[in-house]
């Protein structure tokens, strides 16, 4: 066991505190709007905290650190696309302004307003599958991290993860988005301290020039220059950057855990401001963990130790943290993960309950469920999602880069979503057949990766931007055909 008694006490106090802070807001939840978007009452600072907490988990540290460990300083270029996407959307209001003005709770809602209820059901289904498969590897990967940092034996890991997830499930189940916002505040305070502390401790543990020497000695120019040997042929070259910028713009619109923050903000101006400033925060979200991976590479290269990319960060933390502080850092890591679990449980279960189950019930009975019944369905769905991700993490064997697995599960619905939403808002001739084709075509390339990761890994960038290209092709072809043979466009015009 790596944790001392003081460390364990710190962690237990933190977990109990968060649980009670998350549970006491239950009395404020009166309907589905309070539950899913906190009654649209979130201000700028809380919105930024909540967004950062959602999108920083232990798994975020791990996949970024793995990149840094494997590819050196060159992989820091990965931090650029989210910054570009956030600034672009936050500054121009492109796509997000019309969406905010529509006052929707989930992105698939847009699809029923612009296209048809069938399209809403279809994209909801793909979002649920992609999102939950993405979420499904979290417990397994993070259990490994916890195992290395704490020294809890492997036999008890499953129990540890189930207990943690159950605590998160309980307070999210009763308090919904309000409890997520309250617990996020506490979690962000401890998480941000941990991130800055690990960065400083890492540099002091080994020294800047030692890190640079280790990378240049082992990786050569490729470890420092992301465009080596050339901009067009390097691993992080122009193809990669185009794919990533497109994907991040799409994620900021269609990734429910992110766009939910947008829909919870109290007005359009606040939503755009949250996105503008998130650009700066997301730069650090990538740069710091990638740098930890590079530090780990230098640290273990100097010691002549063989470690794997995913294990490098937790091993580094156990080596460089002074005793007594490990508990606080571990509480920070737990905070990052618990806040992500809470938001993801709420996000993906809201898609299942609102857009899949809700659509089916409305189709059969012809009317929507009452707000109270929607609340009940949402809570049952959330418990089901949690049970599924524990099961999936036990049986799924991860191959290739974790970063690419997470990107490709998102890509199942992301190209179709971006094309349908953008053209749905800005192109008056976008039609339902085009939406069906765009969603279907966009899902094909990432399926190739998910079934044959080893064979197609070197074509990840082409699969990435290719998905957007054929989704666009599907939308144009489908809309043109429907406009030629179908009746006049009765779809509601958005812009």
């Amino acid at each position, binding site marked *: 066991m790596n944790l001392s008694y003081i460390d364990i006490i710190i962690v237990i106090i933190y977990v109990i505190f968060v649980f009670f802070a998350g549970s006491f807001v239950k009395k404020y939840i009166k309907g589905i709007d309070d539950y899913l978007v906190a009654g649209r009452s979130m201000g*700028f600072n*809380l919105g*930024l905290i909540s967004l950062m907490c959602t999108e920083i988990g232990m798994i975020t540290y791990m996949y970024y650190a793995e990149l840094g460990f494997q590819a050196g300083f060159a992989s820091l270029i990965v931090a650029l696309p989210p910054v570009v996407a956030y600034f672009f959307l936050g500054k121009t209001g492109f796509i997000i302004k019309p969406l905010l003005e529509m006052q929707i709770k989930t992105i698939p809602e847009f699809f029923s307003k612009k296209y048809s209820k069938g399209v809403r059901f279809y994209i909801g289904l793909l979002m649920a599958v992609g999102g939950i498969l993405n979420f499904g590897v979290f417990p397994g990967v993070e259990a490994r991290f916890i195992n290395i940092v704490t020294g809890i034996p492997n036999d008890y890991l499953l129990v540890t993860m189930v207990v943690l997830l159950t605590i998160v499930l309980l307070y999210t189940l009763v308090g919904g988005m309000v409890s997520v916002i309250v617990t996020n505040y506490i979690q*962000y305070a401890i998480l*941000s301290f941990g991130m800055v502390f690990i960065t400083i401790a890492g540099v002091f543990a080994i020294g800047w020039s030692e890190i640079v020497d280790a990378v240049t000695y082992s990786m050569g120019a490729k470890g420092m*220059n992301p465009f080596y040997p050339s901009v067009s042929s390097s691993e992080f070259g122009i193809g990669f950057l185009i794919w990533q910028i497109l994907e991040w713009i799409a994620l900021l619109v269609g990734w429910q855990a992110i766009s939910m923050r947008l829909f919870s903000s109290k007005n359009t101006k606040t939503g755009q401001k949250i996105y503008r*400033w998130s650009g700066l925060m997301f730069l650090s979200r990538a740069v710091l963990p990638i740098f930890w991976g590079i530090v780990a590479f230098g640290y273990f290269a100097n010691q002549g130790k063989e470690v794997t990319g995913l294990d490098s960060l937790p091993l580094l933390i156990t080596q460089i943290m002074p005793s007594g502080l490990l508990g606080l850092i571990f509480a920070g890591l737990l905070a990052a993960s618990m806040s992500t679990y809470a938001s993801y449980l709420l996000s993906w279960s809201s898609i299942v309950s609102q857009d899949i189950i809700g659509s089916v019930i409305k189709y059969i009975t012809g009317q929507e469920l009452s707000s109270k019944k929607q609340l009940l369905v949402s809570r049952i769905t959330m418990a089901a999602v949690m049970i599924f991700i524990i099961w999936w993490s036990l049986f799924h064997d991860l191959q290739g880069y974790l970063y690419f697995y997470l990107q490709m599960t998102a890509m199942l619905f992301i190209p179709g979503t971006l094309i349908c939403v953008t053209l749905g808002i800005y192109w008056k001739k976008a039609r339902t057949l085009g939406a069906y084709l765009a969603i279907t075509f966009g899902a094909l390339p990432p399926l190739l990766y998910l079934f044959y990761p080893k064979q197609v890994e070197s074509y990840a960038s082409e699969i990435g931007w290719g998905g957007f290209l054929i989704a666009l092709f599907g939308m144009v072809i489908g809309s043109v055909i429907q406009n030629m043979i179908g009746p006049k466009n009765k779809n509601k015009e958005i812009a």
Partner: protein
Amino acid sequence: MGFWEIVWLVTIVFSTLSFTFMSLRVLYFGFGELKFML
């Protein structure tokens, strides 16, 4: 120091400092928002 080493050093220092100050800022003002919301 090579070109890329300077680029990455500036990036890492800027990221660490901006993250620290932004975090302190949002936590300070976020507390008021949290009290108001509750």
